């Protein structure tokens, strides 16, 4: 038996002979007999392995089919949710910034080296994190790099780079670190890593909340582990069903004072809609009188004229911090021709100089949705997205509801209506 032991002792071969054993072939008369015996033993050895492998293959196939069914269901569900516009993202936790009496936020400096902050939630379902960032003027360039680490992983799950803007004085705003889909898998602790790359480290500070007694929950130096101050970083954490693609834009600035309701947008209530008026000032506007609020249905009719544009006006409806305004356009009668709808957000309640037909060139217009043709009985969503420059530091703006007949067709039965007006902040 020595040669077996030698085989096992051989470092390269021992794995192959670890379970080796000697088989007694019994009495053999000739060479052919040996071969037959050996083949018999080998087939006996391979048979059960083949059976095992076949079992594995069937199991794998069943698993694959099952996965396919589940995957299709999940994908269909996700598509349905996206198309239905259901708001899945909810606020999970808000760690409010602490403020001085003059309103300015307490801050934590993102100093020369990186800092880290343990999040107060488990990772599962997290889809975005809002941070209150203060950029201070001075040197330009550089960026704020944020990274999210999960559990014991040494590699970041996601990273974001926010360019440091060129500001005069200080600019403070919320930024969103958004994930393409909500985190799934095991619930794990999550750590946010923040550092300034390039530029001046003093250019960036983060809003801090009230002091907390347990210093483990305060930011700490990523390299040293030393605690930085006694205030955790202020943040708002958003959640969605784990694994779902989350429809949030990255680096979107949010206003701070959100309502406590879980929805991110605000549907304009009927009491605001009923204030709608018809715009009569432009010389080109035909004196067409049909702008009506239907209280029972919470819809606004803006009946287009045969030629020209009909405009409904909701004064001062759009707050300065609004991110977007949307509404659905709908032609209530199936006998009507297609009607074109548009939403316009403007500074003043009247545009001067340029006809309303040339909306983009109107000087007081902030932004608009563009003309959208809507076929009868088929609602269509119109949206106006406001850029950060368009949002900050302005008084409330006016929403204009425009309709016109497509290609000047007959306006008979053109019962054009706006409803589900929503403002997202």
């Amino acid at each position, binding site marked *: *038996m020595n040669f*077996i*032991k030698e085989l*096992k*002792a051989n*470092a390269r071969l021992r*794995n*192959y002979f*670890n*379970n*080796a*054993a*000697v*088989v007694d072939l019994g009495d053999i008369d000739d060479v052919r007999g040996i071969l037959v015996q050996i083949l018999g*033993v080998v087939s*006996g*050895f391979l*048979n*059960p*392995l*083949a*059976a*095992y492998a*076949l*079992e594995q293959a*069937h199991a794998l*196939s*069943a698993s694959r*089919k*099952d996965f396919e069914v589940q995957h299709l269901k999940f994908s269909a569900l996700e598509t349905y949710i996206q198309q239905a516009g259901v708001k899945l993202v909810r606020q999970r*936790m808000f*760690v409010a910034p602490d403020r001085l009496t003059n309103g300015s936020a307490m801050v934590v400096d993102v100093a020369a080296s990186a800092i880290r902050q*343990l999040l*107060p*939630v*488990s990772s599962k379902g997290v889809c975005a994190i809002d941070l209150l960032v203060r950029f201070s003027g001075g040197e330009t360039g550089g960026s704020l790099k944020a990274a999210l680490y999960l*559990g*014991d*992983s*040494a*590699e970041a799950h996601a990273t974001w780079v926010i360019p440091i803007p060129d500001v005069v004085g200080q600019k403070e705003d919320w930024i969103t670190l958004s994930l393409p889909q909500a985190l799934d898998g*095991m*619930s*794990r*602790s999550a*750590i946010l890593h923040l550092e300034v790359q390039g530029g001046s480290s003093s250019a960036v500070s983060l809003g801090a*909340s*009230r*002091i*907390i*007694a*347990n210093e*483990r*929950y305060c930011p700490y130096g990523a390299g040293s582990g030393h605690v930085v101050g006694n*205030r*955790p970083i202020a943040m708002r954490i958003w959640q969605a069903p784990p694994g779902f693609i989350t429809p949030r834009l990255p680096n979107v600035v949010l206003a701070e004072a959100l309502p406590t309701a879980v929805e991110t947008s605000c549907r304009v209530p009927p009491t605001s809609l009923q204030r709608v008026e018809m715009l009569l000032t432009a010389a080109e506007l035909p004196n067409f009188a049909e702008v009506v609020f239907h209280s029972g249905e919470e819809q606004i009719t803006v009946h287009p004229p045969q030629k020209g544009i009909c405009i409904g006006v909701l004064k001062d409806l759009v707050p300065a911090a609004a991110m977007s305004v949307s509404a659905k356009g709908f032609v209530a009668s199936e006998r009507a021709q297609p009607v074109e709808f548009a939403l316009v957000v403007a500074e003043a309640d009247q545009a001067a100089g340029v006809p309303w037909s040339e909306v983009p060139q109107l000087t007081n217009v902030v932004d608009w949705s563009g003309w959208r043709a809507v076929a009868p009985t088929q609602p269509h969503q119109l949206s106006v997205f406001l850029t950060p420059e368009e949002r900050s530091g302005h008084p409330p703006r006016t929403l204009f509801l425009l309709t016109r007949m497509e290609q000047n067709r007959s306006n008979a039965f053109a019962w054009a209506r706006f409803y589900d007006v929503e403002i997202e902040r």
Partner: protein
Amino acid sequence: MFNDARPRGPVLATPLAPFLGVRQPNDEDIEPRPDGTVQFAILIPVYKHSILLIEAVESALQQVVDGRLAVVIVNDGCPHVETDQLCFLLAQAYENVVYLNKPNGGPSSARNFGIDYIVNVYPNLKAAFFLDADNRLSPHAIAHGWALLEKHPDVGWLFPAINTFEVEWNGDYSIPYSRLLHVVYENLSDTGSLIRAELLKHLRFNVDATSGFEDWDFWLDAVSRGYKGMCSDLFGLEYRNRAESRCKEVGRDRTSISKYLKDRYKKKFTPRKLLGYEHEESPRYCWFDTESMAINMFTDPAISPKSYVLKDFCRNFWAAQEEPDKFLTPDLMFWGSSHVIQQLLGVGLAHTLFWLIERQLKAHQFVAVTLARNTREISVSFRAIATGAGLSDRLILIAGRHDILRSCANSSDQGWLMSLASQEPGPSAMEITIAAPVDVSRQTQLLSSLVGAMALSVSHIHNSSYRTALNVRWAWRSRLFPAMREYPALLERHLNSGTLLPRVQEPARADVAFVVPFGSFGGSEKVGYACAQQLRRAGFRTHLFVIGGSGFKIIPEFNDAFDTVNLIGNEVPALWGGGSSGRGTEFGVASEPEMRTPLLVGLLASMDVVVNCQAAPLNAAIGELRAMGIMTISYIHLFDRSDLGREVGHPFLGLLFEHAYDLFLLCSHNLRHRLYALGLPREKMMTVENAPSFSLSADKLKSIRAKRKEATETLNVLYIGRMDTQKGLERIIDIVVHCNNAGLKANFRFIGANLVEGSVNTATRDSMQRANIVFEPPVFSADKLGNAFAKADVMILPSRWEGAPLVILEAQQAGCIPIATDVGAVSELISNGKNGVVIPNSDDHSVVLGFVGALAMLQRDRDERQKMALAAMDQLLTISWERSFEAFTALMNKRFPDKARPVSN
């Protein structure tokens, strides 16, 4: 669930051919060669998790770690052939996978098998992880864990917070690691932990623990060897949790398992050891030093405390409100100067005082302590304050409870607290006065300043910015563990005791407790003190526990007998009697509240030896103490008598509780023979002959000896002792009367008192008066006693029953001839006609006549008197406590070798 599309042809044969079954070790196996390249190992025992095993192994193989890692699978004789198949294939496919196969022996034996392998084969192993076959690891788990172990060299193993899947649950284990909690409350570490290789050289799983919790057993073994763990809540162990599992199965048998572990480790986790953990991890006392302004936390006041400045304490205080499982504010808070502690330690009263305060704070909101100087006695008294009877003007400390002070700290107005300094105090408070031979002048403070200091620190706590800190629960996992300030209560529940005396320091030899019912001058107490004195001189730490009366009368001859004096205060157990009866003697058992068994257990649990010096209620607690590993000794002196003359008392109690005692110390051979006849095994008894409770100087002896050679005509007769039936007071009166009637030239002197006020009836008092018998007050000092005996020629002791009376030896020492009735061990102390006279004990008249005859003889025959006196003095030259306790001291030295100077083999 799925469309089964398998072909319908002939199915290949299963099960396997016998050739490839579950492989057993055979002669062709070789010893594995050491592999010095492997630094980390993941050990996976498998039994019946044939399919899930692949996930565990995959997660092990996916580890990203700096250093070579081996995956060692141990098949614990799984009957599923596919387990063997899978393991075999994995071992063939991956160079760093090792497959070990063994007969079934349970998870402990499987893990041990694996540990033996990795310890022997991987000499450079740094750490190993035990991964159950149905769990998984995240890819960076080992790297993360090892980085933490490198950063904390004092940590032996790293364990994760538990995050489960299938049935989701997340438990917060990230409390500060506590050995105390790990022993007395719950297993803090899952088996799935990263362990340093150093531990694996010494630790193995208990293969007898087949009912579960073998991992708890393993960790307790690690703790007992001085290791400790640490939790990382980032560590990526994925724990598969199902509705039914082995873990759920063993959870049903938890009570018996906890008891099993408690018994298994009782010698390693003694009460004192556990108190030591408490002192380090969750001390029960918080002391605000009014001089240095530091805040100290401790359990044992004799050991260095943890110190904090007020700012950090305030932060800790409010953090503990939010996360009491992670931060500690002790339950009991004190204000005073730390010099007070030092002084009380100096007179051996510190531990008992803290214990008394802790007891009183259970019923009162505050406790204040005053100190009074008394050179003759150590005592404690209690006074509850009331309107018009406030606290004393000067105190040494004030103590309060955390819950009361927390509610004060939530208010900006401390008027309620400050009213403690007035005569109309708002809070309820108890004032304890300690009388002791201490200098009080420098240690006391004005009541107003002490209360002011307390109110000021509470104000600081209130004004701390952390009071209005962020009120958000940051830890997202479920809280599992009790508040840290409850750990002392958990310890007491584990030990089944009341409040523990806070002793932590390990002695060089042992801590020996002497428990007496009264701290007075009785013979049985003095013998106990003498024993303590000898043991202390041999290097033991000795402690007196007085469980009755109010204090301890200081005897100068035994000044060096005790390291500490401990008083039970106002919660005195029933010192005699009880609800049960045996051999005609009443006794109490642990379940009777009057016995105060939990109180006594708590008081004595930190001892190594308990000597019961005839304290009857201690018998009810002795079994519990012995079960903790404490050596128990009963020191018995005599048979008492009932009113009808029936023998009762401590010897019978000793017999009834014999099973719970390791040793019986007896003061005479007579007592030993009696108890042997009653059924006490010989080897459980040791006779310790009594000696005088004081000694006379050589000059004094010389002077007395010279005086004895000049016997006077008038016989000076002395009686010294109690005035009670036992001592034969009625016989004494009759002896005096007969001697007077006979015209005997004798002067009688009586010294003593009655132990119990009013025990002498009116008729006896009248008889004493008629016989002109006046008792002088008792004397206690050696000088006065020596003088009394030196002046007397004869001492009479007509007792009805006795043990081995010290007074006989003390008289003989001074050449004072004892005449005593033959009761107890008297005849062992007196050789009749040589160094004293023994009168047979019978009816009172015969005894009286015997005494009168002996007195007459000694008065008449001066030569005989001289001869007996000198013979008595010579006899006593050979008797001493040191000699008497020699054998006992040797036994104790052998049982408790000197740890400071260990004896080498």
